[in-house]
């Protein structure tokens, strides 16, 4: 063993120790100092009325749904489009926005008209608007975008039966459809066509680069983008609405869960947590005086889908047994603290045509359930009950499992992540799934057709009569007529026991006191399950 090497080792060890020790001291010192400097990023709010201009805001979103954008933020290729609406809205703005009390707010479009046969839609584009790269935002740009969306291979593309999209003026776009669609505008909120990208930037950067640093005409523009992790945006100086956005900087950070987001909020690392659904945390947050919990208006009730194509639920008595075996009242009370209203159909209080009860709906009847279980042979099999990996969904599922066991129905639970869940549906081997059905307009997006029409891979129902009802309702322009048909549809679903509905779930947005805006201090109807926030109107203030 060499003499010198021992010395060298000793010196190296002491150096390492010194380095480590310094690092620790540094960390502690920095931690002590920075706890005071961190407050500079969140503006101290003096008592004042109304929103104030300026400030930087950090928003947390949970991974697994809205916190992920692995494919980038190009409207035509972002598969998670609906989930990523917060980012898309902030960067691209929207043609039309869904505002408080269900008002349709013209944002980058100024108006629309639908022909009496509901096959031609004219959109008026806001004049004089520019994308953040200076190029003009006009009808031509909108047409390019919608064409591109329709041609893309993405499953996120709009499902309208479009025959042509043309610019019939510098600021007018005409869309012709091969089948009538009275719900077109309602469907826009849910669709990637609502987000218009700069065609020039797309051309110049190429699709891949564009997806990582998108250019739009919304209230904010991209500063930096780390996929599914951090998105930093800054105020768009040429935004069409003067005085908006209020904020200078908007940062989105992805966190692991509701709890992580809430802790980060408490640790003052951010101001808003979007889409909190954990009941016990909501109760905890409600008790916290420094925090404001805003429950959104539900547009998508939780329901149980039954696969009518395979056993055991191809048997109508088995389906009815499930209806009779479920007593949702106690679940609502004990698991969800009665935060959400029970419903028997696919409409929610935040959407159109809301009708919580369905006449003749099969309610809780354990004796009848046991009889039906015996008659249909349901008690002899073990049912696969699936759901998404999400606390609310999982808790609902477990509670149902307990209730059904009391009448002799045996289940095994599978909680899937989004991708395997999709695979389950596509394979057709699923038996029952707890999901959400419904949307602001039942004709739109994850609406009724998504779960109950025969053409949707996510549906367990294949009934031409139901299909025709839904298509009819979508085609009409008169709201009262449409609602009448949707009521018929809900009745039809109930009388065929296609799937029970449970409660009109709506997640909440949690924000620290001193931040105001639609979706934060006043409720908004949810566009697609998760809450919406109109970022240009968000500000510090009171």
């Amino acid at each position, binding site marked *: *063993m*060499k*003499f010198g*090497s*021992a*010395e060298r*080792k*000793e010196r190296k*060890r002491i150096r*390492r*120790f010194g*380095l*480590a*020790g310094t*690092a*620790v001291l*540094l*960390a*502690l010192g*920095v*931690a*002590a*100092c*920075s*706890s005071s400097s*961190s407050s500079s990023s969140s503006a101290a709010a003096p008592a004042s009325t109304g929103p104030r201009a300026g400030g930087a805001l950090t928003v*947390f979103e949970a*991974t697994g749904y809205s916190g*992920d954008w*692995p*494919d980038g933020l190009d409207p035509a290729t972002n*598969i998670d489009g609906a989930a990523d609406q917060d980012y898309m809205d902030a960067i691209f703005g929207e043609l039309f926005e869904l505002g408080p009390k269900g008002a349709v707010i013209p944002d980058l479009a100024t108006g629309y008209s639908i022909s009496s046969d509901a096959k031609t839609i004219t959109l008026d584009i806001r004049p004089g608007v520019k994308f953040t790269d200076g190029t003009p935002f006009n009808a031509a740009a909108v047409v390019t975008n919608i064409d591109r969306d329709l041609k893309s*291979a993405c*499953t996120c593309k709009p499902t309208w039966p479009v025959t042509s999209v043309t610019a019939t003026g510098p600021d007018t776009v005409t869309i012709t459809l091969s089948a009538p669609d009275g719900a077109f505008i309602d469907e826009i909120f849910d669709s990637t066509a609502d987000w218009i990208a700069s065609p020039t930037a797309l051309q110049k950067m190429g699709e*891949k680069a564009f*997806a*990582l640093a998108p250019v739009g005409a919304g209230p904010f523009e991209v500063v930096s983008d*780390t*996929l*599914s*992790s*951090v998105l930093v945006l800054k105020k768009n100086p040429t935004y069409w609405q003067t005085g908006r956005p209020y904020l200078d900087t908007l940062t989105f*950070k*992805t*966190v*692991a869960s509701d709890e*992580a987001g809430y*802790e*980060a909020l*408490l*640790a*003052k*690392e951010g101001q808003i947590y979007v889409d909190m659904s954990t009941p016990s945390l909501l109760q905890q947050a409600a008790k916290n005086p420094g925090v404001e919990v805003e429950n959104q208006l539900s547009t998508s009730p939780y329901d149980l889908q039954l696969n009518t194509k395979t056993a055991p639920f191809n048997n109508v008595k088995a389906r009815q047994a499930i209806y009779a075996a479920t007593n949702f009242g106690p679940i609502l009370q004990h698991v969800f603290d009665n935060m959400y209203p029970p419903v028997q159909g696919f409409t929610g209080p935040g959407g159109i045509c809301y009708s919580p009860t369905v006449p003749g709906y099969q309610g809780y009847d354990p004796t009848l359930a046991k009889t039906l279980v015996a008659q249909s042979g349901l008690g002899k099999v073990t049912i696969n009950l699936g759901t998404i990996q999400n606390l609310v969904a999982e808790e609902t599922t477990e509670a149902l499992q307990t209730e059904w066991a009391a009448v002799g129905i045996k289940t095994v639970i599978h909680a899937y992540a989004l*991708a395997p869940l*999709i*695979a389950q*549906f*596509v394979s057709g081997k699923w038996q029952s799934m707890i999901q959400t059905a419904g949307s602001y307009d039942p004709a739109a997006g994850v609406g009724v057709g998504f779960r109950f029409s025969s053409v949707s*891979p*996510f549906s367990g129902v294949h009934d031409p009569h139901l299909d025709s009802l839904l298509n009819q309702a979508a085609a009409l322009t008169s709201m009262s007529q449409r609602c009448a048909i949707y009521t018929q549809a809900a009745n039809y679903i109930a009388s065929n026991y296609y799937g029970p509905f449970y409660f009109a779930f709506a997640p909440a947005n949690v924000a620290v006191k001193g931040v105001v805006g639609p979706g934060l201090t006043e409720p908004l109807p949810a566009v697609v399950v998760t809450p919406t926030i109109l970022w240009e109107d968000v500000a510090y203030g009171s």
Partner: protein
Amino acid sequence: MAVAEGPEPGAQTGRARRVLGSPSLRLAGRRLLAAILVLWGVTFLTYVVMNLLPGDAAQELLGANATPAEVHQLEVQLHLNEPFWVRYGQWLGDAFHGSLGTSVVNGENVTTILGTRLPVTAELLLYAFVGSIAFGVAVAVLGSRRPNGVADRLSMIVSMTGLSIAPYVLALVLIYLFAVRLPWFPAIGYTSLTADPFQNIRSLTLPAVAIGFPLFSIYTRLLRADIVEQMQREDYIVTARAKGVPPWRVLLRHALPNSLFGLITLVALNLGTLVGAVAIIEPIFSLPGVGAILIQSINDHDVPVVEGIVVFFGAVVVVANLLADLLYTALDPRIRYERAAS
């Protein structure tokens, strides 16, 4: 392990010839070859495992509304319909030319993805390792000076705790105590080194402690046990003491260096568990490293990204073990000759 002290015998002239033909160089060559083989084995095994998973990336990408025709079209486009050996051969060939392919999910270059995420993970692991080794050595030395003394017993209790606690539990406790209750460190998020060095260290401290504390516990126990054994049993220690060498010098100059063998082996061995550690810790702290996307990539069947990550970690483990082996051999002549002879 008794090793004679003193300057190495041998004239200078024959040195060159001896080094070139030396058994240690040949040994190093053999070891290098073995290391490459092992690395290849790891990539191959990963490819096999990923292929055994049901479904494929095209299905995951296109999601639900895709017709089988659309899925097939994408499969052809992504070369997913080609047989296993062709695809693996393609990947291996590309890898040799320095290209790790593109992510199946978003078309981004795997090298770019790794390039942005690896520095975060690497810094975190470096922080954890340096801290755990430095503290481990320091505490072990302090404790073994007086075995069963106050410092020793205290260090034993602390390290026993570290051995028995799960990293994910530790992470949760640390966040609750030092981020929420006492705002000393951020609960989540990462600031890059170039943006703000102070915040960077701050944002990595809690995760590094969550990973490093169990490691520290293992290292300090092993080292302390080794040193104590050296001090009590080995003849050369007795000799040194009899010669009047002060106890600290005996500890630091003689017992410690010889005890480091066990530590080196253990550190190299531990590296293999890193992937698991970061996959759990990074999401808890929302750090944008490779651990955070590993699980997602496996779920998405994004084989190139998974392979890229596996190659990196596999290389780290293999290289570290190789270095440890070589260090071993270089430092202990007995092993060198024994191995060369066998």
